[in-house]
């Protein structure tokens, strides 16, 4: 019955730290990661079965991507202003992260992963601060919310690309991409074809709807896992060597977006959100729990310097992209700086990306993982402060910029 003890440790510690962070009006994500670090491998080592907690956490990531896929709106993103905003946000911040990654001596792939983590803001923190600060009536709120949507689709693309790259040799990348795309098309058409059959099942009042949704999610995730194995066995039989990897979270993303076309699913969606919230919390815990905390590395001057540079650069990056977006879309620098302040917090997606791409606690990427974990914890706290006072920051910055330009004249 040790699994009960593990579950109790995870839920009680997350509840306690979660409550503290809500009380302090801080983002809860770093609290859960810190709970994991304290109680896991690097801390008191209280968990009996790390695998068990890790598996539960993986369900959280799958459900998160399913949720994003469902909420994703392909139509709204195509408006030219939004496209410009999204591309500017991606261009500026990704390049900033990538070049800094190369400067501090990471490999190309590591720098690519770092850049992805640096680029993606935390939708959860951003959206809750917009509502709390009563910003929804302002036009920039729309811009910011659509930026988050754009980031979601980029995240999906990055995940497809990165899991393919990470799967091994260069020659296998196209194979991976092709099988992933094939499976996605298969899911989308299958759900569309079956929607008449599925739709009434979601309207039932018993346990069938929730069973069906999890059967779909786990079923397709299992296919994503089994298909590459099957393919490589087949290829082996034909005398070719073939290794590829399909990310199950990508499959969940597209399953979600396919199901958004099924109207009767809406009613059930609330229930899946509750499951997502629970398992995602366990995921953050499990990520912290497996994190190899090395004091020597973390306190070395190089690491601290790199971390500080990364933080400074990514705050600057969001302000720069925000300013460009504000100028172009709203014709106002101040609005742009507000966009920058609101999009500063990073959080769940950076961690999810890292966990999905390199797997948790694997050997070779220790430096990168430590860097990103420390980065996310710090930037989610600083960032939520920025988002909370976004209006004031925008005003102060425009004030000082105006002063500077006047002095020059």
């Amino acid at each position: 019955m040790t699994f009960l003890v593990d579950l109790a440790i995870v839920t009680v510690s997350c509840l306690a730290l979660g409550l503290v962070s809500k009380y302090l009006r801080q983002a809860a994500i770093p609290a859960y990661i810190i709970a994991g670090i304290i109680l896991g491998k690097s801390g008191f080592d209280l968990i009996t079965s790390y695998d068990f907690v890790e598996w539960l956490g993986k369900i959280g990531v799958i459900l998160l991507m399913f949720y994003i896929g469902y909420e994703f709106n392909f139509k709204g993103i195509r408006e030219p202003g939004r496209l410009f905003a999204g591309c500017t946000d991606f261009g500026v911040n990704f390049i900033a992260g990538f070049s800094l990654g190369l400067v501090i001596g990471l490999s190309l792939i590591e720098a690519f992963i770092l850049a992805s983590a640096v680029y993606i803001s935390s939708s959860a923190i951003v959206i809750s601060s917009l509502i709390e600060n009563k910003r929804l009536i302002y036009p920039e709120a729309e811009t910011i919310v659509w930026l988050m949507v754009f980031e979601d689709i980029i995240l999906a693309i990055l995940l497809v690309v990165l899991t393919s790259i990470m799967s091994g040799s260069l020659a296998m990348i196209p194979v991976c991409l092709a099988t992933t795309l094939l499976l996605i098309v298969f899911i989308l058409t299958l759900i569309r074809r079956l929607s008449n059959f599925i739709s009434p099942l979601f309207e039932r009042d018993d346990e069938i709807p929730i069973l069906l949704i999890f059967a779909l999610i786990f079923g397709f995730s299992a296919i994503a896992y089994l298909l590459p194995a099957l393919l490589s066995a087949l290829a082996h039989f034909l005398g070719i060597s073939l290794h590829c990897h399909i990310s199950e979270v990508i499959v969940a993303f597209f399953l979600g977006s396919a199901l958004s076309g099924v109207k009767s699913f809406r009613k059930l969606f609330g229930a899946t959100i509750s499951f997502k919230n629970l398992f995602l919390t366990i995921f953050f815990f499990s990520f912290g729990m497996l994190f190899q905390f090395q004091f020597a590395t973390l306190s070395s001057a190089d690491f601290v310097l790199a971390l500080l540079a990364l933080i400074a650069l990514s705050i600057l990056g969001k302000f720069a992209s925000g300013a460009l977006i504000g100028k172009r879309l709203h014709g106002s620098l101040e609005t742009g700086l507000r966009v920058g302040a609101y999009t500063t917090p990073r959080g769940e997606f950076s961690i999810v990306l890292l966990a999905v791409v390199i797997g948790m606690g694997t050997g070779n990427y220790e430096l990168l993982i430590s860097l990103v974990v420390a980065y996310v914890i710090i930037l989610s706290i600083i960032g939520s402060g920025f988002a909370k006072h976004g209006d004031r920051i925008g005003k102060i910055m425009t004030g000082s910029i105006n002063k500077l330009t006047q002095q020059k004249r």
Partner: protein
Amino acid sequence: MRISELPEIGTKYEIESPKGDKVAVIFLTTGEIELYVLEAGAEQPSVTRLTSEEARRVGSVLTGAMLTIEREDVEVTFSDISDLRINIHICPVTEGMVGKSIEDLGIRKRTGVTIIALSRRERTIISPPPETVFEEGDLIVAIGEREQIKACAREILGQV
């Protein structure tokens, strides 16, 4: 009226008055409704969060078509017949009325008000006959013009 989607938040309906004041109604995905009012030139908007029931009430007040509630008075107007207004008055019976019938009190004769319903311990009597005797705890629903309702409140209910 501008309608826009805010993914993960809800749907926003926005209207700007000629003076530059802005009003936005946001239907949150949680089912609640946020009402924003931003006066032209103001720093901060005023925001209130309503349940769907509260929002419906606010909405019906604004549309003005169906109901206006003033204390326990309900004024019913009809969207197609603009000059027809019926006041419906809801009040508990007062001490002086208990044990007397509608006829005894001469409600119709003295005030012009008609009792259209009586709510008695979760049982409702629609169009009670004149000999109906009031009991303690009864709730009366009466209709009449505003002046008649006032007269009824004064003379029958003994309210000033």
